């Protein structure tokens, strides 16, 4: 089975993120970047599918500045076969991303698309859904388990939804977005790292794909989350409810 996996470069969730004083973005100096953790889970799942089926291809795709090749290289070191890199310096909204990816899908004709459920930088959680809609493919988001039919023509996906698990099935091709519990991604191995050096990262320009990437969204301002305050103890449930209502204003 040929699987396409999307990879986004995001700031390391372990690092301290600071908002620029003017609120136009985050301070990017000295920030370490990693593969979006949900995308890493998506790569792992694609690799497991390939290993289980004893064949197929795992193709990574990323959009962004030249530096995203670092993250693609990491994915190739985990075991993906090759990568596609769409060169684009400007900020993209989810729809532009989905449109670019739709073009890549047209070219590559994968049987399956696995994506992270969301990127941990903007947490938009839209690209997968939009892409499925643009392609007219079925989608299963927030996947925690996949089971393919014997003929590998369809898949049963367990989804983590509010209040429990839901299992849905569809005939391939389709879009699956990975949730946290789908798997535990492997570490890139030394032989894998050395092999990755020789694997292909193909560069494609946005103009080649002929997609309108005009952003329909504008980030007005970023603000850091409020500083955590120390907690307080209350004597009765009534006092707690009162405070939640009058002070925290959450009920």
């Amino acid at each position, binding site marked *: 089975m040929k699987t396409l996996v999307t990879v986004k470069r995001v700031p390391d969730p372990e690092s301290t993120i600071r908002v620029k004083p003017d609120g136009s973005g985050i301070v990017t100096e000295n920030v370490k970047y990693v593969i979006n953790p949900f995308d890493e889970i998506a790569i792992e799942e694609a690799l497991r599918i390939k290993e289980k089926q004893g064949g197929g291809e795992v193709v990574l795709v990323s959009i962004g500045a030249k530096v995203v090749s*670092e993250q693609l*290289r*990491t994915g190739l070191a985990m075991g993906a076969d090759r990568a596609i890199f769409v060169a684009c310096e400007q900020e993209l909204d989810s729809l532009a991303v989905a449109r670019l990816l739709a073009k890549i899908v047209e070219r590559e004709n994968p049987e399956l698309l696995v994506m992270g459920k969301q990127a941990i930088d903007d947490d938009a959680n839209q690209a997968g859904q939009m892409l499925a809609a643009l392609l007219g493919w079925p989608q299963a988001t927030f996947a925690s388990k996949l089971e393919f039919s014997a003929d590998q023509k369809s898949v049963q996906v367990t989804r983590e939804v509010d209040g429990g698990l839901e299992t849905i099935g569809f005939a391939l091709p389709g879009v699956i977005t990975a949730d946290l519990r789908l798997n535990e991604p*492997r*570490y*890139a191995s*030394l032989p894998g*790292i050395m092999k*990755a050096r020789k694997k292909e990262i193909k560069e494609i320009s946005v103009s080649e794909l002929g997609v309108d990437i005009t952003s329909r969204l504008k980030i007005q301002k970023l603000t850091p989350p409020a500083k955590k305050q120390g907690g307080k103890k209350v004597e009765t449930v009534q006092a707690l409810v009162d405070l939640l209502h009058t002070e925290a204003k959450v009920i």
Partner: protein
Amino acid sequence: MNPFPGFTLSPELELLRDQVRRIVHDEIIPAEKRVDPDAEDLAEEDYHRIVAKTKAAGLWSLAAPEQYGGGGVNTFGMSVILEEMSQHRMGLYNPGCGVFGRYPPPVIYGGSEEQIQKYAVPTLRAGSYTFFAITEPSGGSDPAGSIQCRAVRDGDTWVLNGTKIFISHAHEANWGVVFVRTDPTKGRKGISCLIIDQGTPGFTARPFRTIRTVSLPNEVSFEDCRVPAANMIGKEGDGLDLCMDLLTKQRFPYSACNLGVARAAHRLAVAHAKQRSTFGVPLSQRQAIQWMLADAEVELRATRYLIWDGAWKADRGEDARVEASVAKLYSSEMLGRVIDNAVQIHGGYGVTKEFPLERWYREARVRRIGEGPSEVHRMVIARALFR
């Protein structure tokens, strides 16, 4: 275009280092919290669970030669990696808690293919401890002059008599190597290297306790201990020639462990200085503290390049003995200073077992003595100045 772009790590080595960093952070540090602060190793089940992952990822035995199942990573690469691998509580004397494998004494690779297959390969595979017995009560830094432990040939065995001291793991390892005098008339050329199996009659190892509560050193004694002649590594009289080059190379990853632990201590100190206030002012705003931390930052950066410079030289096959002494001397003394300040900045917390600092502080003291004390390395450096 810039014709001299300068140096960056290769993307492959960076990626490898990141994998090791992740395993230390995600696997080793949490597992370490589940055992006693003075523990020598992780709990069995944690060790095996993590080893399954490192083996699956081909991150096991990175430094060992490829033909014996290792990663074939060179001295420079291992120096970069050990700087990460040592950044945890047990990291100074048990980098990575052994989950990336453990190595036999490198002198074994000077032996025959048969010896390597019989001794080195199973050790690499199992990641077990071995020992290296060269130091004697008469001194450790001048083996050519001070080795008195005698081996006398009798048929196809060598008969050993004598004492070795400060031999880590000698009581628990399956085997180790011992340097003995096979010809008292030949000085340096009269010293040979033999493989000793645990349990050989006449071999006893008595562990004793030190400031370092783990990797206990032993007093090792030989009383008419018979060792098969086939256990000699290389030829008779080759003992020191076999090990000196390899000992030199080992100094760089060793120094990288000093650097790694110092960096970990420094990071804790910076974090503590940011969040701890005295008299209403954060420590990070106090000049006394700032200067400690600024000096540490400078020394850490300097150490890294001293190690890398020497490791490159060693990997090119050039004589790096002075560089090895420079790296070992500076890294171990720097470690002492950085940890001492980190403890001071933490105040009372610095000497509790709630933090890894007190263990690093104690173990760091040993780093200025073991593997050649500071004075001997200064001697080596000075000797080169006046050559």
